[in-house]
Structures are given as C-alpha cells and as structure tokens.
C-alpha cells in the first residue's frame, strides 16, 4: 500500500489525530511535571508567609522582636513558632502560634461568597478569640478597582484589633455585628468599619463571611476546650 492511498482512507485522519494528540499532550505533560514542584513550592511559601505575617505581631510581642524581622526570617521563624492544628468537627485549616507552649494566637482559613465568586481569607485571632488581629484576603474575584479593593491595606487594617466577639454571645450568635460606615468617615465606635465606595455588596460580604465563619470556628474552639 503506497502512502498516497493510505492518506485517502478513513483511517488516516484518525491515526493523524491520535499521533498529534500524543505528541502535544506528551510535550505538555513533560512541561507541567517540570514546573509543578516550582508552582506548588511557590504557593505553599506565599501561604505560609501570609500566616506568619498575620501572627507576626503577637509573636513579636512575646519574643521582643520586631514583626518584620520575624517575617524576614521565614522559613525559620515559621517552623519555630507556627504549627498547623485542627479543631474537631471543623473543616478548616487552623494555625497556632506558640512560644514555649504559650499560645499567642490563632490563624484560620475562612471562605465566603463575594459578589462574583468565592472569597478566601486568613484571619488572625487572639488566644481567647475575642479580638481579631488581622485579616488577609488572598483569593477573590471582585471587580478590579471597586470590590477588589478589599485587598487594600487601609481596608484590611480596620480589622486589626477589632473586637469580634459579643460580650453576651449565645450559641450560634457569638460574633459582634460590625457596622458599615461610608468610606472616609471616622469610626466613632469600635465596631464600625469603613466600606468601599461603589462596592457595597462586596464590603458587606466580607462582614458576613467574618460573622458566619468565626462563629463556626469559635464554636469548634469551645467544643475543643471542653474536651
């Protein structure tokens, strides 16, 4: 059978497609394998650095070091002070910062619904869970320039040392209701948070996420403490 006649058969397109698929998929597989370790290492590092920087202030106070020295000392400082733990019945990543077995704070990975998609954030909490030490929203699909500004420091900094628990909390309702005020307005009460102009839904989504998720975390923490 000459090549010419084979190319006229029905089989030729199938064989051609198979061969070309194998070649291209093979090339891609090799490329992906080659960079997979790099991608995963980078993702892990960014994540751990974020946990560390959220807990850095507490660690710094306990060890009498400046927070940025602790962050610069990654990964040593991370391995030394931060540990991943789990709360029974809570399907979230929880990190704990400890110096000489004294708990300095917790860091929890929380998720919530934004305007366009899921938001993921890390929050740092005091050892008694009463105070929010900081929040870092690391994954969101909000509108760039509007909702996406929840990633900006002036917004997230409002949650530093934010009293998150109610003084008269009941099961299912432990978390303080934050109050949104216009951007640029001065907070008169500790529970007031400036929202982002033009991104009302996103701003309240952050508050809603905090309320719902920290409630769950705190309940799990209480259960754990009882055990």
């Amino acid at each position: 059978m000459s090549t010419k006649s084979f190319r006229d058969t029905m089989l030729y397109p199938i064989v051609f497609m198979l061969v070309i698929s194998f070649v291209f998929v093979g090339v891609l597989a090799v490329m992906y394998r080659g960079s997979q370790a790099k991608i995963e290492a980078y993702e892990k590092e960014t994540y751990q650095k974020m946990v560390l920087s959220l807990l850095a202030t507490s660690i710094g106070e306990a060890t009498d070091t400046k927070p940025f020295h602790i962050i610069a000392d990654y990964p040593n400082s991370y391995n030394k002070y931060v540990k991943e733990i789990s709360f029974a019945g809570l399907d979230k990543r929880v990190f704990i910062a400890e110096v000489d077995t004294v708990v300095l704070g917790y860091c929890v990975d929380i998720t919530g619904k934004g305007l366009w998609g899921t938001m993921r954030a890390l929050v740092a909490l005091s050892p008694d869970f009463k105070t929010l030490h900081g929040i870092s929203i690391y994954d969101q699909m909000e509108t760039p320039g509007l909702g996406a500004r929840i990633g900006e420091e002036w917004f997230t900094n409002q949650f530093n040392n934010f009293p998150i628990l109610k003084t008269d909390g009941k099961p299912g309702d432990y978390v303080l209701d934050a109050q949104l005020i216009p951007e640029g307005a001065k907070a008169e009460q500790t529970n007031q948070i400036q929202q982002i102009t033009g991104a009302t839904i996103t701003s309240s989504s952050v508050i809603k996420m905090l309320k719902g998720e920290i409630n769950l975390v705190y309940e799990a923490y209480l259960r754990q403490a009882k055990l």
Partner: protein
Amino acid sequence: MTKKEIFRISAFKENSVWRQILGICSALAVTNLMVNSLIMGLGVIFALALSCFTISLLRSYTPRSIRMMVQTLIIAAYVIIVDIFLRAYIPVVSKQLGPYVGLIITNCILMGRAEAFASQNKPLDSLIDGLGAGVGYTLVLLVISFIRELFGFGSLFGIKVFGDWWTNWSIMVMAPSAFFILAMFIWVINVKYYKNKA
C-alpha cells in the same frame, strides 16, 4: 508579498481588532491595567505566532476534514504552555490575569489567522503573520488600558501619574468603559487611518 508587507498587513491594515472586530472579549476584560494588557498581549503573540507556524508546518499532512480539530489542539497546547510558564515564573501576574490566559484558546484571532492564513501559506510567512496579528492586538489593548488605567487608577504601569487631587473614575475600571473607548478608537482609526467618511 514580502515578509515586511505580510507583517504590515496583519498588524495594521487588516488589524484583527479594529478591522475584523475579533478578540473583543479579552480587549474588554483585561484592559483595566496596562501590565495585564501587556502580559496578555505577549501571551497572545507567543501562542499565535507559534501555533500559526506549527499549523502551517503540518498543513500538507493535515486531512481537511479534521483540520479545525488539529488547529484547536495546537493552539490549546501553546496556550497551556504560556499558562504554565506564567504560573511558575510570574505567579503574581498569573493570579491577576486569572482565567483569561486559558481563554486565549477561545480568542477568535487565533482560529481566524490559522484558518485564513496559516493553513494555506508557508511556515515562515505564517509565523510573521501571527506575530503581526499579535502585535496589532497588543497595540489596541495597550491603547485602551492606557486610557482606562490613567483615568481609573491615576497611574500607568502601576506608577502614580496623578497626585492625590485626582478622583478615580469608577466607570473606567468597569467593563463598559472599554466598550466606549474601543468604539471611539475604531471610529478614530476609520477616519484618520482609512480615511473613511465618519
């Protein structure tokens, strides 16, 4: 046609965006920051030029009945290469572009050039045609993002241009502004470059 002419035609005279109105979706989606536009443009140039080259190399072996499948496969492979590269080496940009890099596959310009040019011309000519179309596309993206970033964020390539007195125009960071700017841009091109009557 000389190589220079091929480039000139595909980049300017028959520009994919302003002349053929292709690739509009991404022109609206990734033009809020100049950096994003530039990286997206480079990604398209790379994927477009190399896939045109490969499609042209294989054109005499490719059975006509499955040529589009083959073209899509080749385009997809190059786009995934770009995606993996960005994720491994420029993760910050990769995060910002989000799903749009993967969506280069569905960019009509790539399929358009593959069908219109690469499947009938020599590999080197196709490479140049792909480069030209990619450059033309990037050019439009940069023009739109220049205006959008300047007025929407008061900055260019992330560097503050306007001082604190500047109030950002929210409309500029949202997709509708790209519609208006693109339309006006095409209008200007039609009048000034093609000398059409407005």
